[in-house]
């Protein structure tokens, strides 16, 4: 909001300084919020809800780290998520474009995309197994699908929302459809595409548990399911938290990318 109100003359700071200050404040708030959340969890677990306490979870995390399990799992899940997510968004962008641009493509693809978006990933596992077996392929595919379906809608909407005058300007400067796509539609719909990528990333992580139902040998989701067999709550919590933190980190990277990529926008 700082740009919208004139400050008193003494409160003068260079723009760079101001930015740094805002960033620091933000980080503080983040930390306060996280600490508050952990405190709430501690209170809940102490007051009789059958939850493991933070120290229990930390202890379990220590064990899982000591024997290397956590790192193997992390590497396995991260690889799957990264590949699935990358493929998903990479496909979503041209597909979203085709749908936004060509009525024929939209007419053919939209019903299916809408249809599959509502289908829970759990439900398509048998089908995926039939088609792809039990190796890495089907796991990555399930994650890919989740990321793709979340991202494609957003990209499509982005394409539809591109300012018509900019497209006209490009046409007038000699661009054909391919050029307009690469040089106008993609940059102009970057905000939408990045929303799609962020939502897709969330979906990819949220799907990792389902994906690792398909005969996984390791992975954070697999470990959680195994822990569920013994109702080993501390392990479940460790893996949940690791997934959450990884998701958060990757989201931050996307957000950072976005800030760089859309700095041309006049934003609040």
């Amino acid at each position, binding site marked *: 909001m*700082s*740009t*919208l*109100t*004139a*400050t*008193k*003359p003494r409160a*003068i700071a*260079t*723009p*760079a300084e101001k930015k740094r200050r805002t960033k620091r404040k933000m980080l503080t708030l983040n930390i306060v919020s996280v600490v508050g959340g952990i405190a709430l969890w501690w209170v809940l677990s102490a007051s009789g809800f059958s939850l493991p306490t933070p120290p229990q979870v930390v202890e379990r995390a220590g064990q899982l780290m000591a024997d290397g399990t956590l790192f193997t799992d992390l590497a396995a899940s991260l690889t799957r998520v990264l590949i699935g997510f990358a493929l998903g968004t990479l496909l979503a962008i041209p597909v979203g474009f085709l749908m936004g641009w060509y009525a024929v493509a939209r007419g053919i693809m939209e019903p299916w995309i809408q249809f599959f978006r509502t289908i829970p990933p759990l439900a398509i596992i048998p089908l995926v197994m039939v088609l792809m077996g039990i190796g890495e392929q089907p796991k990555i595919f399930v994650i890919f699908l989740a990321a793709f379906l979340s991202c494609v809608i957003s990209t499509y909407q982005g394409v539809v929302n591109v300012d018509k005058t900019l497209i006209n300007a490009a046409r007038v400067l000699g661009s054909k459809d391919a050029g307009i796509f690469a040089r106008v539609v993609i940059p102009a719909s970057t905000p939408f595409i990045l929303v799609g990528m962020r939502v897709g990333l969330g979906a990819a992580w949220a799907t990792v548990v389902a994906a690792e139902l398909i005969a996984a040998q390791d992975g954070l989701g697999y470990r959680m399911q195994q822990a569920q067999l013994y109702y080993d709550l501390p392990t479940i919590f460790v893996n949940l938290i690791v997934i959450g933190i990884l998701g958060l980190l990757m989201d931050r990277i996307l957000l950072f990318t976005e800030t760089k990529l859309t700095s041309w926008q006049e934003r609040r």
Partner: protein
Amino acid sequence: MSTMTSTLANPKISIQGVSKVYPLGNTEFKALDNVSLDVGDNEFITVVGPSGCGKSTMMNILAGLETVSGGQALVDGVAVDGPGPERGVIFQQYALFPWLTVRDNVEFGLKTAKMPKAERRRIADHFIELVGLEQFADALPKMLSGGMRQRCAIARAYAVNPSILLMDEPFGALDALTRVNLQEQLRETWSKEQRTVVFITHDVDEAVFLANRVIVMAARPGRIHEIIEVDLPAIRTEEMRLSPEFTALRNRVWNAVYHQTSGENSVSEPSATTA
């Protein structure tokens, strides 16, 4: 050039040593450098100057939409801290709400002021007629031509009846006749309703025709170059445009803009503002 330093007794607007610095790549760009100016109550000033000399920046600071990097801007003796409906603004880029019809755009400010529906409608229709958009009252901005959008923005700002009007090239996209009509209209309303007006324009004729004082700005850094008093009768008529006094003033303003720009890089040019 001493006129500009003469501070008024009770200025409506007082700009005191205002600077504005923008980051530009790794360096900084001085959009405004130590600008000082007092505008009296019920004064009509016009601002002219080369493209990029900081006219819009100055107006945005007065509107409370832009912070200062130094100095201060006062309205009624109080430092500007955010925008307010007593300061009406017409933006260089129109800034119509694209999802509202012309009428709803014009009614926007009245709705904010919780005016009853019937009255709102009456006032809106009045100003829509004033700018000649009756036929398009229910049209969306995307259906309007450039000049019609600008007229809609004018009607919207007039409707809230602000005591200060800040207008950024408001008639730039209008044809000659509409422009002349709206100029007369504005002058007339101003003389009746005791408003303070800050009016940015590139049209030297317009600047002279409307103003009590013409502020001529210079670029790099943005600063006030000269202030020209317009000592024409308070009531301006079309015939006056053809008078020798008018022509003389017009030429004086023209030269002020022209000369300064050609001497843009001459360091000997004295700064127009008081430190």
